[in-house]
């Protein structure tokens, strides 16, 4: 299961994390030399890529639905492309965002998108329960975005 192309980095990072001063940097060995911490810009971009990954996941779900069990060639091909795109974008986003948060946001945005667009493309009708659960997910996503800050800035340090 574990790939051996890169044995030096296959080791869990817990052991080397003590060597970095910034606990918010998920992969210290991969950070650009000039930017030892995940800057707000970089974190914001990672969140955009993560939402994009959720969008690709929606495209994948809809294409799989359209492929009717991978029997329709065109939709099957579209599904494979979205499969590659969603995992690629997820992988890019997880360079910066913690994997637990990243997975929840990826699954959450994918579920919201699929439930919202499903009625558009397929013969489904949304229910009140659906709308309620969508609201719960979206509230959690917004909460996570606000909570995903490496260090609490001290307002008294601003001036």
């Amino acid at each position: 299961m574990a790939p051996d192309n890169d044995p030096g980095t296959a080791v869990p990072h817990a052991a080397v994390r003590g060597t970095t001063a910034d606990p918010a940097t998920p992969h210290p060995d991969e950070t650009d030399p000039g930017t030892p911490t995940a800057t707000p810009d970089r974190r914001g971009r990672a969140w955009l890529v993560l939402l994009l990954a959720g969008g690709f996941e929606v495209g994948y779900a809809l294409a799989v639905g359209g492929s009717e069990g991978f029997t329709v060639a065109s939709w099957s091909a579209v599904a494979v492309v979205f499969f590659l795109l969603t995992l690629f974008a997820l992988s890019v986003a997880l360079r910066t965002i913690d994997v637990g948060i990243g997975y929840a946001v990826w699954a959450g945005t994918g579920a919201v998108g699929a439930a919202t667009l499903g009625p558009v493309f397929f013969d489904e009708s949304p229910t009140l329960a659906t709308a309620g659960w969508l609201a719960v997910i979206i509230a959690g996503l917004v909460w996570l975005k606000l909570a995903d800050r490496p260090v609490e800035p001290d307002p008294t340090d601003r001036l």
Partner: protein
Amino acid sequence: MHWLFLAVAVVLEIAVALSASRAQGFTRPGWTITTLLSGAVATYFLSLALLTFDVGVGYAVWTSAAGVGIVVLGSVLFGQSLNVRKLLGIAVVIVGVAGLQLSGAG
């Protein structure tokens, strides 16, 4: 058997997230291949499980078990300890996704 299929799908979904994190934007070939293979095989085992499981229940168990496993292993293997606020946010999202799927719209 369907519980076994679902368990395998959960383990592989956890592997997808962890290896996607290790793949560093698909710049590491070994982890990239692991990500794609786990993703494909996870989907296959999930579809096997859903042949006998109720689809909503199967998806809900799959997503929430994988979410919990990823948080735990992300902390243990990667040292990505999450504070209470982040854990609460993850829990709300996962509960929402599970609720959505149980309500039949996932």
